[in-house]
């Protein structure tokens, strides 16, 4: 039981631990394989078993989840953290953070970064932080705030392969990390694109361990190519203390490999599952297996491992998104063509790591290149990347013709690309409006005082936060509803009974009595906690033809 211990006590525990530790990363499973849609209902149903399974930590926040919670799940990210902490009192709660891009896609001002990290640290015990350019200064403010809040910091190296991605390069970055944050940290290896052989991972772990014998190492990998089990085994055998896993009940493809499979393999290598309760891991998946069907429609149109990741290198979450986007654009038959283009774009753009927000920039550039010609329709984010707004390129700069094409695109002032870089380029402290002005603007829009948590969410995602709050005012806490209702398709059969519990543990019951379809509206009659009520909803005429089910 690590909850309640100080960061130093936890680190001492990890350093001295004789076995290996597992972090269950539901946040990444949800993001990589189910478009982030796993609802608190499912998380909470599995919580007691996960909490008894003996995990080092449970990652449930950060990454894209904060934005998806607000936009697509209508869940307050802070409330989700409170619920999970309460339901899992023994397990450390972890969040992933994109350095100065926080949970978003562009750098935030320093005061915003500090406020966001301090607020989330109320509920987050472990911060796993990375920067898609491996530019360590980008992590500085986030790491400082996490440490100041007494939290465990895992500054992570984005891992990749290629001539430049040598152990020496990563050791240099590890040194930078230690110089920035000291030695009371855990160094993370973030293998988001499921690259490298087990030997390659083992050699990096050993190299870091040799240089920093007192700093524990955590390995976060994806199983996109189907090989991460082997890489995790290699990492542990080389001395990594923590690896990140999924539940086999999710049957995930592009996120982490399952905990149970790893435990079983490691047993053959002589590693006992110290502190891990296998029965609880199995029980977790028994529950999750029943829930998975609710999320099936959010899975990638192509299911199964994707060995092509070695070439396109997309991070787990971006793979399913890529397939879906290609399908929407009618490009699914040309997906390999896009992947080939993507590999070329990555090479041209400095061999950077295709992980958020870099993955979005690289992917959209590749798609745009296929659709409109190479670098003919550059995005604003690509321009920002070339201008160095996210940080410097780690290995080499893109060729001049790309700078010219991208930066001079649609410029009416006739400025040349090198002048644009000179006058507009570089990592600059983005200007921050006064917090008080922002808060006033927010409260004016809400028409009432905003809570501190609401304001933090507004600083992260202004428009989506306002919409979320308005949604909750109108519909309440909809995450109480079972996923079978939240994701329901078709009409409810007469006599359908919907049951769920509220915040206070009270059981509620909504019985659908009848559905009457008029020309421009649908009237639903139901018993709401045994009180008869009717709701008339205006609808498009075409929905009248929907069949029950």
């Amino acid at each position, binding site marked *: 039981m690590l909850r309640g211990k100080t960061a130093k006590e936890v680190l001492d525990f990890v350093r001295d631990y004789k076995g290996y530790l597992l972090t269950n990363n539901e946040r990444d499973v949800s993001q990589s394989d189910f478009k982030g*849609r796993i609802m608190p209902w499912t998380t909470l149903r599995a919580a007691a078993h996960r909490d008894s399974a003996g995990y080092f930590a449970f990652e449930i926040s950060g990454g894209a989840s904060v934005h998806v919670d607000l936009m*697509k*799940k*209508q869940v307050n990210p802070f409330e989700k953290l409170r619920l999970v902490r309460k339901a899992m009192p023994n397990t450390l709660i972890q969040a992933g953070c994109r350095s100065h891009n926080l949970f978003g896609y562009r750098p935030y001002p320093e005061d915003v970064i500090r406020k966001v990290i301090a607020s989330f640290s109320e509920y987050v015990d472990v911060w796993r932080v990375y920067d898609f350019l491996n530019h360590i200064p980008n992590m500085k403010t986030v790491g400082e705030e996490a440490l100041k809040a007494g939290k465990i910091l895992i500054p992570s190296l984005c891992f990749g392969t290629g001539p430049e991605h040598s152990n020496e390069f990563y050791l240099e970055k590890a040194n930078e990390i230690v110089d920035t944050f000291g030695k009371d940290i855990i160094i993370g290896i973030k293998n988001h694109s499921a690259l490298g052989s087990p030997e390659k991972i083992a050699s990096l772990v050993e190299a870091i361990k040799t240089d920093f014998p007192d700093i524990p190492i955590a390995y976060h990998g994806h199983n996109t190519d189907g090989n991460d089990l082997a890489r995790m085994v290699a990492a542990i055998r080389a001395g990594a203390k923590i690896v990140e896993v999924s539940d086999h009940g999710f049957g995930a493809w592009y996120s982490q490999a399952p905990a149970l499979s790893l435990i079983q393999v490691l047993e053959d290598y002589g590693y006992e599952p110290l502190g891990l309760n296998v029965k609880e891991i199995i029980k977790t998946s028994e529950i999750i297996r029943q829930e998975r069907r609710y999320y099936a429609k959010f899975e990638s149109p192509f299911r199964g491992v994707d060995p092509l990741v070695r070439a396109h290198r997309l991070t787990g979450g971006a793979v399913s998104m890529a397939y879906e986007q290609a399908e929407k654009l009618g490009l699914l038959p040309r997906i390999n063509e896009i992947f080939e283009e993507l590999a070329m774009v990555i090479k041209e753009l400095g061999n950077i790591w295709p992980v958020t927000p870099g993955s979005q920039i690289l992917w959209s550039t590749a798609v745009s290149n296929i659709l409109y010609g190479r670098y003919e329709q550059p995005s604003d984010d690509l321009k920002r990347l070339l201008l160095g707004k996210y940080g410097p390129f780690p290995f080499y700069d893109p060729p001049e013709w790309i700078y010219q094409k991208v930066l001079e695109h649609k410029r009416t002032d006739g400025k040349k690309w090198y002048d644009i870089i000179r006058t507009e380029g570089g990592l600059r402290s983005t200007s921050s409006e006064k917090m008080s002005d922002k808060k006033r603007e927010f409260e004016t829009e809400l028409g009432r005082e905003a809570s501190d948590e609401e304001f933090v969410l507004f600083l992260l995602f202004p428009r989506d936060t306002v919409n979320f709050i308005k*949604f909750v005012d*109108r*519909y*309440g*806490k*909809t995450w*109480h*509803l079972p996923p079978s*209702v*939240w*994701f*329901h*398709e*078709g*009409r*409810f059969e007469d006599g359908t009974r*919907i049951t769920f519990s*509220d915040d206070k543990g009270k059981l*509620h019951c*909504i019985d*659908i009595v009848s*559905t009457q379809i008029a020309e421009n*509206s*649908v009237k*639903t009659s*139901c018993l*709401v*906690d045994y*009180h*008869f*009520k*009717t*709701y008339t*909803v205006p*609808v498009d005429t075409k*929905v009248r033809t*929907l069949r029950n089910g």
Partner: protein
Amino acid sequence: MINKLLVANRGEIAIRIIRSAQELGIKTVAIYEETDRFALHIMKADEAVCIGPGPRKDYLDIDRIIHAAKETGADAVHPGYGFLSENPNFPTKCREAGLIFVGPPSDIIWNMGSKVIARKIMQSVGVPLIPGTENLPPGNDGEQKAVEFAEQHGFPIMIKAVSGGGGRGIRVVNSMEELLKGLKLARSEARISFGNEDIYLEKGINRPRHVEVQILADNSGNVIHMGTRDCSIQRRHQKLIEIAPSALPPLVEENICEAAVRAAKAAGYVNAGTVEFLVDEENNFYFLEVNTRIQVEHTVTEMVTGIDIVREQLLIAAGETLSFKQEDISIRGCAIELRINAEDPKQGFIPCPGLIEVYQSPGGHGIRLDGAVYQGYEIPRFYDSLIVKLTVYGFNWQEAVDRLRRALDGFNIVGVKTTIPFYKAIVEEEDFKKRRFDTSYIDSHPELLSYKEKEEEIDKLAKLIAEINAHGYNPHTL
């Protein structure tokens, strides 16, 4: 003894009367207009008669009602409140038709209905009166008398229609200019509203409390009082909340009740009635008027005395003498009554008739409901918008207020806007909680209208489920 009673009214008061009659073993006849054919009182009576197409006019048609009574073999008629209850022709016509009228005789209704005669009677037995004039003659003479009155008593002054009542036909003026202008307007309004343009003046009292005394009088000259009611919380002279007893000092309470009995005796009063007073800031009280009928707020008196006033009305009308004396009446605890209407307080209390989709009411110790609706009932637009009269009883003021809050929270009414959230705001308001109010309470607490209408969480979720059902998918997950 009465064998069959026709209730010449509708809604909650008709049901209230039917209940007492049924307890006495009296058969009951309801009347209704065609536009009111789904009203609850029809279902509660033993028989029902449609007296015409309506709306409103047939409930005021004495001949049709008497015809209905004769047709059904009723031997008595109870007028309830409103409609014909204070029309002196009604008891006369009933008597002529051989029917018992449950209420005072015509001459008393007539005398008490005339503010000027009533004041004279009160003056004769020393009941304090608000300084006032007799009927003002029209034209310059009237204006001259009004000016003299204003010079003697100062402002504010109330211009009152002789035939007004219940807050209607009253105009308050604060200057000589307003007075002279107001005389003409008041006279013209009185002519249009009451068919009688006679007006008189009364001295206005600042921030008065409205206190009334319930009386019962039998045909043998026995008159008793049943204590006071404070009806100060009013909106535009219409009572909103009534409380029994009033919180007057004991000696003042005693004096005001004695004055009411004296007034009833002087008037030769028979049956149940109410003597209304205004009480100023120094606890001086002044006669206001006598209401010669059962009143909406009679329930609070019943709660604190334990006496069924309608039952007593029926027994008195049947010729019985009062079965108890003044010393048998004791006031215990505190009762509060309010009218839950289908109205939107935020829109000037505009009536909101419509379908009551859900009607769930509170219950438990100390809660009385006199309702007029049922789930699925459509409140017609032609009549008053009363949904239910809520009366709570508590051992003391604090307990009564706590119970009132609990009772209001216990309502679940869907389909029409109601006055419940407004009352909830009052129950939470500090002056009310501390029992500090007078007739200016509503005007001096405009914040009461800033309440937020709270929607239950479960209803919000049900709304979303209805949307998913309507669209065939959840539009908020896209």
